[in-house]
């Protein structure tokens, strides 16, 4: 197989003072043109993993081990200026909350222009590119839009602006951190369709962070399931949906509402709450909530084993594949 576009190896993230591990030994890769979804609950470390790729971890949090390679270069050992040149040009990101992700006192047009300005010299065509980028994401009346401030736009429109901003320089990799969570259900579908369409058009790689398996099922090629800062299972969407092996993944899938089931039974849920990553210790993090738990699960942590097509970190995978 070719060299992956993005390869995250043994990545651990922790707080800097009073070290608390937040992301533990995470491995995944994204190949050119591929879309990978990272699924997990709040606090599972999925957003931190994504932010670490761009070097945008919040203050007081840092990468404590591992490597992140993009196109062969190690992003973690890159100097600040080289990393800056990568941001927005090769890798860009769409964030969770479009209401706060735009600068409230800067006009929309200026904010898009700033992306171009940061990587190229501006010329007469720059503003046309801004207009075109906004048109592509379905902003009506772009001439008025570039003169508007973010507060004059709705949440859905602002997320479209964010997407236009992320795509304006045609990056190789787009990271989307739950871009639809803060939006109405009807708007969600529009945004999802828009991103999928743009990805197809540009043959762009994508890292899609979400807590909703249903959202990504049709959008990504492979899935990574995270729990309490670790990867519990990863593999192709088909494999994971048809043959989940980690009890957590199986639990997540059975808690999805379906439109075909007419029996009106209650949705299944997983009892308990996720453990904090730094409190897990050398055990399986899911052990306290798992129905298949054995003493082995409480005495050592299972490693992620398998292939790109299918890997699982569990001593007792469900489905009896082993």
């Amino acid at each position, binding site marked *: 197989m070719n060299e992956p576009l993005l390869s995250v190896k043994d990545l651990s993230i922790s707080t800097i003072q009073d070290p608390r591990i937040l992301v533990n030994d995470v491995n995944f890769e994204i190949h050119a043109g591929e879309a990978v979804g990272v699924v997990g609950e709040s606090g599972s470390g999925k957003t931190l993993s994504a932010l670490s790729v*761009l070097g*945008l971890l*919040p*203050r007081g949090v840092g990468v404590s081990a591992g490597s992140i390679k993009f196109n062969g270069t190690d992003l973690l050992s890159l100097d*600040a200026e080289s990393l*800056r*040149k*990568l*941001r*927005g*040009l090769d890798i*860009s*990101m769409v*964030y969770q*909350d479009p209401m*706060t*992700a*735009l*600068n*409230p*006192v*800067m006009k929309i047009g200026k904010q898009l222009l*700033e*992306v171009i300005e*940061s*990587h190229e010299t501006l010329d007469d065509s720059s503003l046309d590119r801004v207009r075109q980028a906004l048109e592509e994401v379905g902003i009506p009346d772009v001439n008025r839009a570039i003169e508007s*401030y973010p*507060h004059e736009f709705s949440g859905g429109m602002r997320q479209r602006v*964010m997407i236009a*901003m992320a795509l304006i320089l045609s990056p190789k990799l787009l990271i989307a951190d739950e871009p639809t969570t803060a939006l109405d259900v009807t708007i969600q579908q529009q945004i999802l369709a828009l991103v999928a369409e743009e990805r197809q058009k540009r043959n762009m790689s994508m890292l899609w962070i979400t807590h909703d398996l249903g959202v990504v099922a049709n959008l990504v090629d492979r899935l990574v399931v995270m729990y309490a800062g670790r990867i519990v299972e990863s593999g192709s969407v088909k494999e994971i949906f048809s043959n989940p092996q980690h009890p957590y993944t199986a639990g997540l899938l059975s808690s999805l509402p379906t439109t075909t089931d007419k029996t009106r039974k209650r949705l299944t849920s997983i009892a308990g709450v996720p453990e904090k990553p730094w409190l897990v210790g050398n055990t399986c993090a899911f052990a306290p909530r798992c129905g298949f738990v054995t003493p082995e699960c409480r005495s050592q942590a299972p490693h992620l084993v398998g292939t790109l097509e299918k890997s699982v970190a569990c001593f007792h995978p469900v489905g009896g594949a082993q």
Partner: protein
Amino acid sequence: MQGISKLRRLVFSSTFIRIASAITTLFGISVFVFLVLRVIPGNTITGAFGIETGALNPQQIAELRHYYGIDQPMVMQYISWMRSFLSGNFGYSFATGRSVFTLTKVALPVTVELAFIGTILGVIMGIAIGMFSARKPGSLRDFGGQLFGLLALAIPGFVLSTAIVTIMANKFHYFPNSLEYMPPWKDPWMNFQQMMFPGLVLGIAVAAPVMRTTRSALLETVDKDFVRTAFGKGVPSRKVQFKHVLRNSLIPIVTMTGIQFGYLLGGAVIVEKIFALPGMGRQVLEAITRREYATVQSSVMVFAIMFVTINILTDLVYRRVDPRIK
């Protein structure tokens, strides 16, 4: 119909409300300062005659009370002062034999110039040191910046002024303020030399709160999502600091600057006194010791009008700084 809705829009428009509340404020201040002057012990007679007031006989006192107009009922005194204030004459200063307006015309430019110099120096120093500090909270540079803020806040203006005067006059035999005050249009170079030190003292006093406000506003803004977005776009760090972080922190900085400027326009009494500047601060101080009611009252009204105007201007600046404020 349309006339009524127009009127309604005018009455509820924010500009109208602001002006109406400003006028109410000014009226309140005029009553307050009028009453305070009459509550404190002594009056114009004791102010003018000092301890010799005791030697005056009741007949003389009665005549003097009539001469100074303080034999009138309070309401009449207030109305008479208000009338002269509104007519633009501001009342009569017995000690100088001039109208308070004439005095103010000379003293106000001194104070306004000093306030401008102090505010500009203070804002430049305050924002620069605030940014310097906030760049790395908890670091040595932050400690240095905060130490400056604390010292500037803790050292009183009169200490700093006296120190400067002492050092400059004693060691360097340089003290331009001992010469006659020169307005900038007569001798700009002399005026600059005379304004330099008092301006610096006031600038440091303004820099302290501006620095602290800047620092905390920046630290709050730097964690906002849009700052992360800016970094994520590949915007260079310096530009993120100015165009995103500082730009979004301006509201509290503008507020603090407005307040400080307002204070300085109220006459930096002690600094003006030490540097022998014939400004409003000195005018009021001397008028208080002489119990010259009209001078004090009218000067305070001038301060109040300027303060209220600054407040309205600050609001206008808000609208330029933040497009969300309508």
